[in-house]
């Protein structure tokens, strides 16, 4: 029985109030008012598609065996690298073994999330793989003063696909693959280029998604009466999204909401995110369709099993959506996406070149937050040096790898620094103590200075620490997120 064993999701905490966009750009594009309700998720300055992917994957792997994963598929149309395997960075972020694991990137279409899921299912059914982690993520660049900026959101979702203890069994799929170009982004281009929305609706969504779903029902030998929920994305208005129900022939109650009012369309992640929003409320026996859109449509059918009751608790979409902080500054959104030229001062001109040989040698520590635990005295320590940090021990080469990423921390000291280079001053950082031993000085993120206290707990989060603009190289490390 092949299917979904576990799931995870991540949505950035910041939610840009769409009225903030309208208020700033109404002078140029008054028509934006039609899309200006609700809010869209917005990456913090230290987040991107990769950091969100790692967060979703970590959520997914809660209570699951990381060492058993034998393939990692990452799907996105906004990968940080065109050449440097992105799924490999993600795998390092969750400290997967390097031996015996296949990593693959799926890209170039908004349906790549479902395509990656299908590939995982093929690998499991074919017998070559036992445990495949599929993650879809997107944080897309948009120009100001057009609808895409309002319609899109940032987010990621992960599915652990396997054969035993599946919480949702894969029942079948049907794909339509065609070169319908609703929008495109040529190599090297920064922004999508879209065609007329009416045409996209009439010739695209309205024809292709129903065709795929019809094909799915026929292949699985069921009717829509057998299906509880149907999840398909449509970034055009919620009205258009709902109207597709009639074309599909489905009861509107069965259509999973596209979360436009609270999230926005998260691109490659969206079919998975919408599917998960239904899965989290589903009962054993429910059949749910996950469908995508982007040069065709993949439609997949899953049936929820009894095992869903046994799944260890995780954040998922519900938890991700609940972790919310309203953002009212449109210029902050623009700066975080580097769409405006802000003077950051001479201090910000420090060289940012990454020594790749040093990054390779330190990859476990830097990407995986792996330190050491001394086998002689039992002291967990970060970073791991050859000599144990315990003054009473100091043995050489006695440490084993010790994963710190999921260990909660307590804040021992902090400051809010107005001098440090920051796009959201003050820069907050301090000393944190890992539960059970180990400590480190670290940046804090997703918090206000007034909220931070000595003794407060925090969780570690994989973030983009720097971006080398001249070489287009993001550098990743971990930061602490105070828990309020």
């Amino acid at each position: 029985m092949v299917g979904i064993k576990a799931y995870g999701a991540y949505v950035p905490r910041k939610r840009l109030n769409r009225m903030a966009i309208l208020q700033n750009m109404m002078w140029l594009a008054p028509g934006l008012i039609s899309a200006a309700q609700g809010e869209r998720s917005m990456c913090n300055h230290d987040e991107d598609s990769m950091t969100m992917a790692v967060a979703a994957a970590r959520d997914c792997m809660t209570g699951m065996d990381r060492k058993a994963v034998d393939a990692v598929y990452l799907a996105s149309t906004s990968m940080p690298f065109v050449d440097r395997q992105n799924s490999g960075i993600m795998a390092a972020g969750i400290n997967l073994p390097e031996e015996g694991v296949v990593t693959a990137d799926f890209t170039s279409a908004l349906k790549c999330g479902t395509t990656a899921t299908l590939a995982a299912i093929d690998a499991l059914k074919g017998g070559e793989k036992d445990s495949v982690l599929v993650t879809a993520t997107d944080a897309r660049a948009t120009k100001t003063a057009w609808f895409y900026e309002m319609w899109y959101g940032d987010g990621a979702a992960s599915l652990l696909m396997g054969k035993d203890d599946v919480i949702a069994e894969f029942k079948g799929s049907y794909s339509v693959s065609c070169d319908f170009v609703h929008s495109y982004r040529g190599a090297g281009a920064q922004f999508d280029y879209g065609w007329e929305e009416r045409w996209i609706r009439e010739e695209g969504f309205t024809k292709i998604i129903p065709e795929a779903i019809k094909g799915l029902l026929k292949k699985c030998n069921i009717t829509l009466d057998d299906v509880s929920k149907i999840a398909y994305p449509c970034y055009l208005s919620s009205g258009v999204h709902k109207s597709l129900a009639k074309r599909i022939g489905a009861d509107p109650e069965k259509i999973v909401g596209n979360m436009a009012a609270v999230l926005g369309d998260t691109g490659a992640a969206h079919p998975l995110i919408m599917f998960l929003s239904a899965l989290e409320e589903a009962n054993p026996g429910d059949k749910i369709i996950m469908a995508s859109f982007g040069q065709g449509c993949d439609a997949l059918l899953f049936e929820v099993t009894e095992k869903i009751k046994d799944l260890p608790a995780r954040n998922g979409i519900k938890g991700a959506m609940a972790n919310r902080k309203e953002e009212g500054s449109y210029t902050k959104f623009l700066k975080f996406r580097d769409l405006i030229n802000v003077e950051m001062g001479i201090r910000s001109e420090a060289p940012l070149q990454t020594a790749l040989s040093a990054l390779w040698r330190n990859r476990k520590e830097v990407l995986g937050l792996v330190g050491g635990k001394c086998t002689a005295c039992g002291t967990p320590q970060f970073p791991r040096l050859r000599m144990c940090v315990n003054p009473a021990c100091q043995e050489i080469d006695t440490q084993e790898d010790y994963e710190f990423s999921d260990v909660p921390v307590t804040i021992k000291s902090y400051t809010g620094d107005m001098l440090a280079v920051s796009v959201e001053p003050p820069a907050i950082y301090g000393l944190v103590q890992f539960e059970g031993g180990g400590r480190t000085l670290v940046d804090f993120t997703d918090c206000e200075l007034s909220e931070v206290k000595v003794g407060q707990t925090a969780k570690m989060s994989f973030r983009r620490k720097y971006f080398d603009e001249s070489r287009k190289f993001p550098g990743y490390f971990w930061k602490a997120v105070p828990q309020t």
Partner: protein
Amino acid sequence: MATGIRDKVVILGMGCSRFGERWDMSAEDLMVEAFQECIQDAGIEKNEIEAAWLATAFPSVHVGPSAAPLSIALRLPNIAVTRVENFCASGTEAFRGAVYAVASGAYDICLALGVEKLKDTGYGGLPEFGASAGPKNFFTNPGMTAPGSFAQLASGYGAKYNVPDDEIKRAMAHVSAKSHANGAKNPKAHLRKAVSEEQIMASPIIAHPLGLFDCCGVSDGSAAAIVTTPEIAKKLGKKDLVSVKALQLSLSNGYEAGFNEWVVDHFVTTTKASVKAYEEAGIKNPREELSMIEVHDCFSITELVTMEDLHLSKRGEACKDVMDGFYDADGGVPCQIDGGLKCFGHPIGASGLRMMYEMYLQLHGRAEDRQLEDPRFGLTHNLGGFPFMNVCSIGIVGKYEG
């Protein structure tokens, strides 16, 4: 068994440039300014100097690497010249090199000079050290500045001793106000205006809870010392010799930021180095016996905590002692009688030697308006790095007794 270098080396002469934004002077020019005063004070010829030590912490923004810049600027006669750096404790490190060279009997007369010209970076504050900290540190260190890293002491100390934020803020303000009052009397200081505690507490925040006036400035400057044996000094006709009583250095080993005990409330290194320094100098009760101290007041909170690390204030009582005026100019142990880093700014390589310069002037009765009555022992505390990883260099000087 080694017992240290108490009374083995005396200071023959010292010099100190005017500290400030010396736009028209290069680092090389400043070296000559300090050296000229120093050698004239020593009363010797340049070719009697047998070895020299240069302290520079950020040479990449002024003279460049190696000790060659000192040899060239002063046209030294092809003698041994060594460049030393130990973060902000570099100045005392140069002094240490020169003193040990004389104490060992390797040389008779040695020069220590520190210089830093920080005002060619184009921006305020210390040069950004992220990328120069090495690739691994670049990947993993938080984006911190000096004020931000020292500011951590406030939250750590406050939590440990249950001291409310406003009490710490007021004590820090008193520390700075006191230093400014002293510096107003010093013609070589960069900042020479008295400032009130209220002004200090109201100043814009740099790194919470440190405000502008809790932070020393960045300036250009140079200071120098010529050292020799007591015998040679006497032969040269010097009287009232100022003798080196102790020099102790302590370095962090990763315990603070890597082990599970330290709570960001004190400096491990200062706590240990001071004990060794008192022992080397023969000081049994520092609170009674020290006449004056110059400590590393890069930030007011550093000075506050250092009073406890030097075993002058009991743990948790520094705020009380500060507010009682114990460290004011008319207190039990005047601290920063020359105005400190607070008024001079912090041209890094020079600072440790500038601290020594004031102790030397005081012991010779040459401190003018700032003169303390009959000082016996002076302590310099020169700290480099950050609370969680640092270098503490302590020097004690006093009247030669031998």
